[in-house]
C-alpha cells in the first residue's frame, strides 16, 4: 500500500512538525518506507507552509509527492494552493475553523483550532488534533504509532496535552466530521 499525504497551513501552526510526526510514526513504529519533504524558504514565513509524506510498503524512489491521496489542510490559502487540486479519489481532513472552501473529494471537517483553543486551552495543539483526526479517518498509520511518534516529538511537559489533542481529533471523526 502506498499513500501520499499533503499537509498545508500557515506558518506557526506546526504543519511541518505534523508531517514529521506522521513520517516518524510510519517509519519507526509501523516499519514502513517513508519519505518526508517540505517546502522551505523565506516565503514560508507567515505564508503557506507545506509538508509531504509518502508511506509505502515498497522502497520509495522518487521523493516528491506525485499524486497525493490524503490531505490535511489548515488554512484557506493552503486549500487554494494545494487542496483545490485534490483528485476525486482523495480524502481530505480540513480545519473547518480556517478553511472556507470544500474540495471535490471525500473530506472531513474538523474544528481543530477552536477545539484546541477552547477545549484544550492551547491553540498550538490544533495541528495535533488534526493529526488524530487524520489517522482515524484514513488509517494511514496505526494509532499506537502516531501516539508514540507524537510523544517523542513534542516538548517535555506537554505530553499529556498532546495525547489529549490526538484523542479529541479521533473523536471528532467518530462523531462524524465527514462533509
Amino acid at each position, binding site marked *: 500500500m502506498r499513500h501520499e499525504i499533503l499537509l498545508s497551513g500557515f506558518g506557526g501552526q506546526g504543519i511541518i512538525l505534523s508531517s514529521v510526526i506522521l513520517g516518524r510514526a510510519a517509519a519507526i513504529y509501523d516499519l514502513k518506507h517513508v519519505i518526508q519533504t517540505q517546502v522551505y524558504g*523565506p*516565503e514560508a*514565513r*507567515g505564508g503557506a507552509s507545506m509538508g509531504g509524506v509518502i508511506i509505502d510498503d515498497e522502497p520509495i524512489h522518487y521523493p516528491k509527492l506525485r499524486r497525493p491521496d490524503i490531505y490535511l489542510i489548515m488554512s484557506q490559502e493552503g486549500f487554494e494552493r494545494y487542496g483545490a487540486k485534490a483528485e476525486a479519489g482523495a480524502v481530505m481532513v480540513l480545519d473547518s475553523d480556517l478553511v472556507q472552501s470544500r474540495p471535490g473529494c471525500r473530506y472531513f471537517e474538523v474544528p481543530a483550532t477552536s477545539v484546541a483553543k477552547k477545549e484544550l486551552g492551547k491553540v498550538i495543539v490544533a495541528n495535533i488534533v488534526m493529526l488524530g483526526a487524520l489517522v482515524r479517518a484514513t488509517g494511514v498509520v496505526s494509532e499506537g504509532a502516531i501516539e508514540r511518534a507524537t510523544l517523542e516529538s513534542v516538548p517535555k511537559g506537554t505530553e499529556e496535552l498532546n495525547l489529549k489533542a490526538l484523542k479529541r481529533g479521533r473523536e471528532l471523526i467518530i462523531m462524524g466530521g465527514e462533509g
Partner: protein
Amino acid sequence: MNFLEWYRVDRLPSIFCAGCGIGTVINCTLSAVTSMGWRRNDVVFLSGIGCSSRAPGYIRTDSLHTTHGRALAFATGVKLAEPRLNVILFTGDGDLAAIGGNHFIHACRRNIDLTVVCVNNYIYGMTGGQGSPTTPVGARSSTTPYGSTETPFDLSELAMAAGANYVSRWTPYHTKELTAAVKAGLETPGLSFIEVMTQCPTGYGRANRLRDVKEFMEIFRMRSMLKQKADRLLKEGKPVPPDAIVIGEFVRRSRPVMGRRG
C-alpha cells in the same frame, strides 16, 4: 514628502516576520533621507545578504543587493566612481561584523563618505537564528545551544576605533531619535555608522523567551541608557549595568574623508 512614497509599494508586504524591527528601521531611514530633500536619482542603497539586507529591495531608487558581507566594498566602487550619488547601506550584525568585518574596518579607516545603517539583532535572522558576533554571552541560538560563550563586539566602539566620522546607536523604539541620527549621518562627511539594536522575534526571540515583540520593546525602553548618562556614571565611578543598552551619539568628528563630492 512622506517616506512611504519611497517604497516599492508593489513589493509590499515585505518578507519580514510580524513584529520584526527592520521595517521600522527602513521607515526611519527613509524619513531622514526625504528630509534631506534629495531626489530619488541622487540616492543609491546597497546591502549584503540577510533579512536586514533585503531592505533596499523595498525602496524605489537604484540599489545593489550584493553578496554576504561585501556591501561596503561594492559601495566603495559606487561612491568613488560617481561621487555625486549619496550612498546608503543597510546591513546586519552578521553581514557587517561576521563575514564583512574587514570591509567594515577598512571603510571606517578610509572614512569614505557613506552612511551605514546596521540592524543589529544579535542573530543571523535570515538563516534561522544562529549566533552572531554580537550575540550576548549566555544567549541561546541554534549554534549556541548551551548559551554563547564568546565576547560580543561593540560595533559602535569598533567603528570609532577604526575611524568613522559619525557613530550613533538607537533602537526601533526610538523612532524620532533614530531618524534624527540617520539624518546627522547623512549630513556628516565621511563614514557614518548608525547601529540599531533591533528585535528579531523569530530568530533571537524564539530562542531567548522574547517571542513577544512587546517584551522586546520593553527591553529597549527600560534598558536603554543615554550615552551622556553612562558617561556620567563612569565619571562618578559608578557602574553601568552590564545589560544596559547605551544609546545616543557616540562621535561626530571631521577626520579626512574619502570620496566626498566636489
